[in-house]
């Protein structure tokens, strides 16, 4: 079942590539159809999901692959991966809807995104380090071709920078994985086995180096300060749906790696270095917010708010590594908040990037100052942008609030120093209000005159993402019920 969910998109992609002369229209609808089927399958799995016992997985599949190096084809789902798998399917389906009117080589585009979807789903379903790495690397390849092939501006250069930078990260990750493999006895790449008997429990130096390699790999992907410099150009020059996937799904692979790999597999080293992670998180929060405040390019601004939002997650997982006798509850809260933030950021930021894409599609510009008074010619656009902006700054009633509240409640509970990150929320609020004001209010001027409002596809794709954010913000229980048991497992593992 899980394999079907993961491989259905890529099989369709192969079909689209190999069969000659599939009409463009058919390719676009095939993409949307498969994305929706995949989403439906995941929703079905969500409904049938029963939180597995600690150390167990739901929908588990395991086949022999490379027995002599202790690696197998091992997929499985728990409360950490299921929300992200579903998020992936939601965002890809929204992108498929958004791209229904795309005229630039729709067939290869559909095939590429289906391939990318399989890679992303695979990352979140993998329970073997090598399998994880395989999907992780393939997602980079897919995203490289998305940016280089369908980007604009200086796309080739940005795509190259993206690929080189994140490839460096992925190889650092691979080094860490090899370290884990050699440290384990018997040698294995299986995450479940490694979590049961974590390597390097009594060798802080070796464990520290292996953790450092993994952290650098994940930090580049996330990205956190100071490894974020590839993100703004990649976003600026990527097509709208490419940006949505990059921000909504690919960045989550980094943060997911923290809770899935770094914390449970290297608990000793994680606790020793938790303070570094907390500091990196706080700096990312503040730095991302301040730099975003200074941007006049919409996409660069959203990209830097991503650095800020990812910073909260890093702060939370760092704080979860600070263990004391009475901290278990706060730690669990922080980890739960981190996972909710991954989902929330995925929905909201994808919506924002799609909205930014609408600007570029109509006027070939991302310049905040070139627009003004969009509310008059395009009221629906203005409403959507305002809602997305409020959701992103963490207003109650949206998913971002639930996430950030839990993160701060949990982090301050274990590490009072986390208070330092609070101004980040304030700056983000200011910058989103400022941007909305520049873009939407006043008399229509500059590029805004004659700006046509959102069409049906755009409304459907962006609207569904925002509606989900509101649903999570108002009725978070259905999500929290899934995440909380898994978060407590992670906290138990990291506290050993």
């Amino acid at each position: 079942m899980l394999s079907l969910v993961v491989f259905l998109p890529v099989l369709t992609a192969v079909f689209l590539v190999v069969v000659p002369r599939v009409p463009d229209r058919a390719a676009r609808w095939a993409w949307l159809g498969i994305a929706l089927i995949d989403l439906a399958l995941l929703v079905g799995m969500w409904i049938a999901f029963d939180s597995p016992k600690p150390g167990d997985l739901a929908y588990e599949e395991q086949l022999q692959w490379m027995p002599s190096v202790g690696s197998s084809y091992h997929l499985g789902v728990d409360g950490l991966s299921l929300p992200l798998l579903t998020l992936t399917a939601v965002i890809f389906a929204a992108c498929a809807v958004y791209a229904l009117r795309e005229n630039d080589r729709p067939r290869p585009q559909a095939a590429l995104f289906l391939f990318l979807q399989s890679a992303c789903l695979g990352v979140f379903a993998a329970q073997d380090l090598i399998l994880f790495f395989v999907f992780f690397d393939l997602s980079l390849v897919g995203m490289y071709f998305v940016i280089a092939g369908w980007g604009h501006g200086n796309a080739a250069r940005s795509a190259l920078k993206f690929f080189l930078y994140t490839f460096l990260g992925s190889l650092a990750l691979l080094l860490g994985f090899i370290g884990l493999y050699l440290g384990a006895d018997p040698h294995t790449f299986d995450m479940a086995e490694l979590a049961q008997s974590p390597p390097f429990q009594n060798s802080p130096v070796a464990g520290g180096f292996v953790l450092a390699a993994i952290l650098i790999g994940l930090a580049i992907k996330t990205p956190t300060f100071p490894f974020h410099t590839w993100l703004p150009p990649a976003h600026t020059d990527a097509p709208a749906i490419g940006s949505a996937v990059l921000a909504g799904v690919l960045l989550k692979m980094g943060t997911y790696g923290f809770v899935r790999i770094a914390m449970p597999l290297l608990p000793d080293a994680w606790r020793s270095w938790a303070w570094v992670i907390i500091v990196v998180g706080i700096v990312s929060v503040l730095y991302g917010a301040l730099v975003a405040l200074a941007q006049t390019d919409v996409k660069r601004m959203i990209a830097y708010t991503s650095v800020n939002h990812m910073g909260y997650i890093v702060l939370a997982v760092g704080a979860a590594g600070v263990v004391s006798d009475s901290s278990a509850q706060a730690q669990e809260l922080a980890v739960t908040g981190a996972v909710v933030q991954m989902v929330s950021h995925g929905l909201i930021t994808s919506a924002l990037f799609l909205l930014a894409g609408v600007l570029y599609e109509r006027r070939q510009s991302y310049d905040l100052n070139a627009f003004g008074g969009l509310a008059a010619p395009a009221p629906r656009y203005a409403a959507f942008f305002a809602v997305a902006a409020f959701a992103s700054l963490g207003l109650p009633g949206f998913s971002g609030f639930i996430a950030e509240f839990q993160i701060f409640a949990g982090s301050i509970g274990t590490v009072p120093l986390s208070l330092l990150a609070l101004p980040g929320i304030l700056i983000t609020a200011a910058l989103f209000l400022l941007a909305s004001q520049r873009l939407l209010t006043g008399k229509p001027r500059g590029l805004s005159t004659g700006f046509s409002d959102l069409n049906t596809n755009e409304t459907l794709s962006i609207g569904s993402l925002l509606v989900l954010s509101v649903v999570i913000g108002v009725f978070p229980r259905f999500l929290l019920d899934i995440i909380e048991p898994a978060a407590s497992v992670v906290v138990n593992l990291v506290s050993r």
Partner: protein
Amino acid sequence: MNVALDTLSLLPEVFVLGGAIVALLAGSFLPRNRQVATRWIAIWALMASVVAAAVGMMQPSTTIFEASFAVDIGSGFGRIIIALGTIFVIVLGIEELSGTRRESETYALLLLAALGAMLLSGASDLLILVTGYLLTSIPLYALIGMSRSPHAAEAAMKTYLLGALLGIMMMLGVTVLFGVGGGTSYRQLGPALLGAPAAAVAVGVVAVLGGLMFKAGGVPGHFWIPDATQAAGTAVAAFLTTIPKVGALVAAYRLLDIIPASIDWPLLVGLLAAASMTLGNLAAFWQDDVRRLLGWSTVSQVGYLLLPVAVAGRSDLALPSLLLYLAGYAATNLTAFAVVAALPTRRAITDYRGAASSHPWLAGALVVSLLGLVGTPPTIVFVGKLTTLAAAWDGGLVWLVVIAVINSVASLFYYLRWLAPMFSRTPALSYPTATLSPVAAAARARRRWAAHSAITGAVFVLVLGVVAGGILSIAGSPLVH
């Protein structure tokens, strides 16, 4: 010693030798337009060799002819990779070679060089090692010069001079090792070198390794590779950057396996590896000729391939990872050359601009092969890199692992310099078909055999990656001396 039985174990080599002789003789009698028969003779001989080698691998490992040649997992893999690789080279060169003045000689020389590489991969006696070295080198000099351009003559000269120099060095090394070890067979040398003066052993090992590095195309014997790759015909370039490496690297592993720890040879090989990969990558950065770029890229690949050699006998993964990487490297590198052979009018990186729209399948094959050389999953070289890195780390060379990783990232840059323009929307050759003269239209067309072999190769690269686990388990048994 049972001569008949021992000869039977050499059946793969016998087939190749027979094929070379028959092709050469048939070529001297056949008219030019029927020389194609020699191609089939060569391919059948190599196929027979593959079958014989596969059958041989099912027998227990042993040494033959008084322990001078090992029939084990190393030579088994070596023979199969070399024979299959040579078949691939011949097929990708069908259009390029058929009907040329020296068709049959080319096949005969290719077979002889392949035979030399097979001898290298099984040599467990220093004298056999030298024989294998000469047998791979001499046909190569001729093959490189065969295309008769001034550049080819220069490249052949360079190769010859370097090969002669390092060959003599190698013989000097053999003499020294013979002097201090009292024998040339590895079985004898292993225990004898334990008590020998370390300085003498070091001189001997360095000199012999120098010769092997010439064959492998690694630092310090790499100077001929880029020139020869650029100037020789595409099929020959594909051959010389792939097949001799297989023999030379297995030979280096086999030799170092018996060298005692009295000298720090892992450090020496590690330094050679680091130098090869770094130099190969840096030099490939700004190359505009795709064949020269591939030439330098093979120099850097030798660096990665030396990782498991540097930890020979010190990690359980060393030998399986070397053999797996060699198989993967051969398949991937040959696929890249097949793409180059299929588009003979495109020589510079800029010529590839927009090629993806006119040749989507070839573009796909090139993406698979170049990203494969970087080590992107799920290709076979990914598993090769993964296991070689793990082996080197396991053997204690963590610094080398870090250098290899940084080099892998750097290599991505120049492979992308080649790949990215292919998907550009403005083609380099963009005149409409109707206005083309027949000659130009013929030049624009792809070569069918080469194109088919490129696509087959790309599929092979992916499939091998998926079944890598099986290959690793087969390659698990140790070498015999």
